[in-house]
């Protein structure tokens, strides 16, 4: 059988061949990401890590690729096994725990994060599931000016779920 033209993506079994250059791997990784081929992206990230263990970009790419490939459990164990590296996966970890409905753990993981739009959004979604509507709505109040797409959908849900449906119209007007 003729060799496939793209077999440089696979780790070469023969030790005589040098491993692919890291720049080439990142180029191919970037292409997989652009094509939303997250399964391949995770594999190439693994290849980078076999050459350069602890490479922050590769670890991040792998975690994000696993999440986007709906492999939440794998993403979490990747995060767990990266605990020795100095960078912070608190937000990703909290997101994975949220997806597994481990809501208290997710909140705990978010606590150590600096407050920004991403962490606040995630926190509000966790609080919504926990039924803590007042705290949830406090966050949407704070996020009103941050121009996040579709945030009015979740804000309406929060108002309705907390029995404040009469405020929906006014909230939508202020967002406009």
């Amino acid at each position, binding site marked *: 059988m003729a060799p496939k033209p793209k077999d440089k993506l696979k780790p070469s079994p023969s030790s005589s061949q040098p491993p692919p250059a890291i720049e080439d791997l*990142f*180029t191919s990784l970037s292409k997989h990401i652009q094509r939303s081929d997250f399964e391949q992206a995770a594999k190439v990230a693994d290849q980078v890590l076999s050459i350069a263990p602890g490479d922050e970009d590769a670890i991040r790419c792998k975690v994000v690729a696993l999440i986007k490939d709906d492999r939440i459990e794998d993403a979490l164990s990747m995060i767990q096994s990266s605990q020795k590296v100095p960078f912070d996966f608190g937000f990703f970890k909290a*997101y994975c725990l949220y997806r597994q409905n481990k809501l208290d753990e997710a909140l705990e993981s978010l606590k150590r994060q600096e407050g920004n739009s991403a962490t606040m959004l995630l926190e509000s*979604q966790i609080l919504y599931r926990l039924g803590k509507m007042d705290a949830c709505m406090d966050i949407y109040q704070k996020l009103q000016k941050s121009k996040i797409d579709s945030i009015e959908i979740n804000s309406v849900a929060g108002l309705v779920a907390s029995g404040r449906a009469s405020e929906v119209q006014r909230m939508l007007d202020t967002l406009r």
Partner: protein
Amino acid sequence: FPPAFQATPRNPIVLDLAYNFIEFPSLENRMKKDKKGFISRLWR
């Protein structure tokens, strides 16, 4: 017949907006530089 349509309440929709903040890092600086392209000339 047929009976008139009736509005029924439903649970409000919640979107997973946090998902949009799960982003790949920029790999621009990790890839092989193109041979002296337009951009790299600008940067020198």
